[in-house]
């Protein structure tokens, strides 16, 4: 909560007749000094309040705000008396003004959990009661209206503040989120790039991963974990790139929401990518996702050394079998085609669940 900061002004050193208060005020308000002096002179005629106000402003300018404010209040009271209001009315108005002043200076909030401006509200209500009781029956019709008016004066600014604060807070939160995002991802990546400047493959991999993340954030499903097949594949591709220093080129036609079976498809595709990255010797792996009417297909292809299924070493056969096994358990199929020297293509297909 911000306390309202009063505009500062300094007595003018060049444009002065007594203490330079009128000159200084005129400079602060941006009006002609003669006009200010005229107002003060008129106020001085009205019960001497102009003189009091002048002294009050001098104190205020010297930094003695409390004395200044008290004198201003006194000046205002004198003015009201001078224009013919009764003493009771002046007390009422003074209480109203004091209430507003307290609220302005000390602040407060009508929001749940905020500190209620109790003193200020009490002064306001008291002022309204004094003011209205003095005027009695003749004001009774106006009373509810003026009370509501007084309340509106108090509550209005808070409602306004509440609304503008809310949009401000949302804006700040967005900013903070972007800052955090950039810190967590872009800055970390740049740090990694600097540290591994002598390892081009690693630099390329982290840069590509970063590119992918930023792009997904900018154009795709936004923050958080992937919730579509293509996002999940992009994540898997980025992981494989980072772990094994190969490029994974991802293309897609269509997309599908993630469910348990589709997650198995992603895991199988990831294994196929890892396999290609580790054993093919090729620098690039192509991944293509296609959604036909009743099935989802993912193709993982490399242009590496390829292999002959019959003479696969056991450790590698394990991977191949785990891809096939995973797809079968998910209700789909995996087809692995390869010839020595011709690279490998893994085709994963999953029937689409109609929901």
């Amino acid at each position, binding site marked *: 909560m911000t306390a309202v900061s009063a505009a500062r002004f300094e007595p003018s050193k060049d444009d002065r007749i007594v203490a330079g208060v009128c000159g200084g005020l005129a400079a602060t308000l941006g009006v002609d000094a003669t006009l200010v002096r005229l107002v003060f002179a008129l106020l001085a005629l009205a019960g001497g309040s102009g003189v009091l106000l002048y002294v009050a402003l001098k104190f205020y300018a010297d930094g003695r705000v409390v004395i200044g404010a008290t004198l201003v209040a006194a000046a205002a009271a004198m003015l009201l008396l001078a224009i013919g209001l009764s003493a009771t009315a002046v007390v009422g108005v003074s209480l109203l003004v004091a209430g507003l002043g307290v609220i302005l200076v000390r602040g407060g909030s009508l929001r749940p959990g905020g500190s209620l401006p109790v003193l200020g509200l009490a002064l306001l209500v008291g002022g309204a009661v004094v003011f209205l009781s003095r005027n009695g029956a003749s004001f009774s019709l106006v009373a509810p209206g003026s009370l509501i008016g007084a309340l509106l004066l108090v509550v209005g600014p808070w409602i306004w503040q509440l609304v503008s604060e809310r949009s401000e807070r949302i804006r700040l939160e967005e900013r903070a989120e972007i800052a955090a995002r950039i810190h967590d991802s872009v800055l970390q990546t740049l740090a990694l790039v600097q540290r591994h400047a002598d390892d081009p493959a690693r630099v390329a991999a982290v840069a590509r991963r970063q590119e992918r993340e930023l792009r997904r954030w900018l154009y*795709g499903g936004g923050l958080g974990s992937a919730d579509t097949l293509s996002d999940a594949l992009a994540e898997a591709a980025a992981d494989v790139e980072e772990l094994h220093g190969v490029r994974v*080129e991802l*293309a897609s*036609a*269509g997309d599908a929401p993630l469910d348990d079976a589709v997650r198995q498809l992603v895991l199988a595709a990831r294994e196929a990518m890892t396999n290609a990255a580790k054993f093919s010797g090729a620098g690039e792996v*192509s991944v293509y996702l296609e959604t036909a009417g009743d099935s989802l297909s993912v193709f993982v292809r490399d242009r590496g050394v390829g292999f002959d299924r019959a003479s696969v070493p056991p450790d590698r056969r394990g991977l191949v079998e785990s891809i096939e096994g995973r797809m079968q358990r998910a209700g789909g199929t995996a087809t692995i085609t390869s010839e020595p020297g011709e690279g490998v293509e893994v085709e994963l297909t999953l029937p689409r669940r109609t929901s």
Partner: protein
Amino acid sequence: MKRRVVLVDDHELFRAGVRGELGDAVEVVGEAGSVADAVPLILQLDPEVVLLDVHLGDGGGEAVIAGVAPERPGVKFLALSVSDAAEDVIGVIRAGARGYVTKTISSDELTDAVERVAAGDAVFSPRLAGFVLDAFRDGARVGDDAELDVLTAREREVLQLIARGYRYKEIAARLHLSVKTVEAHVSSVLRKLQLSSRHELTRWAHERRLI
């Protein structure tokens, strides 16, 4: 004879990188970093191929094509971008670019793509092939010209293989076609992409902001 190429990209660093990667394979005759610079430069130099970024500070690659094409119809444009937003990619192709490759493309492939575009062929990256297959997905035909609104089975097959990472030569071998025929299919897809009034193309591009 080396192909005469102009680079248009608002990142100087990237232009330097591409220039370095292309090396001696082509002759880079000029560079520009904005639409305002690029249009007069290309009109003046009349290169064979313009490597064009999809996004430029003062407009898109589309604006460059629109400024050049009427006066120099012979200049071929190849979009080279990191942009993945489908509507941008499809937009620059529909404006007249003869292909789209991503900036992560290897030097050899880029040189090859420039050569192919210069020769009048179309160059589709796997990603673009995926976009196009998605855009021409089966559905109600709404355009006036049915021939332009659907891909033939063969075109679909070729595009699918491109998306899967196959090169033209590999596609030709796999489908028992000549490389020339594969190229013809791709060019035909490009023509449909540029001329089709198919509603899906626009609607799809706007609806989809993916990957």
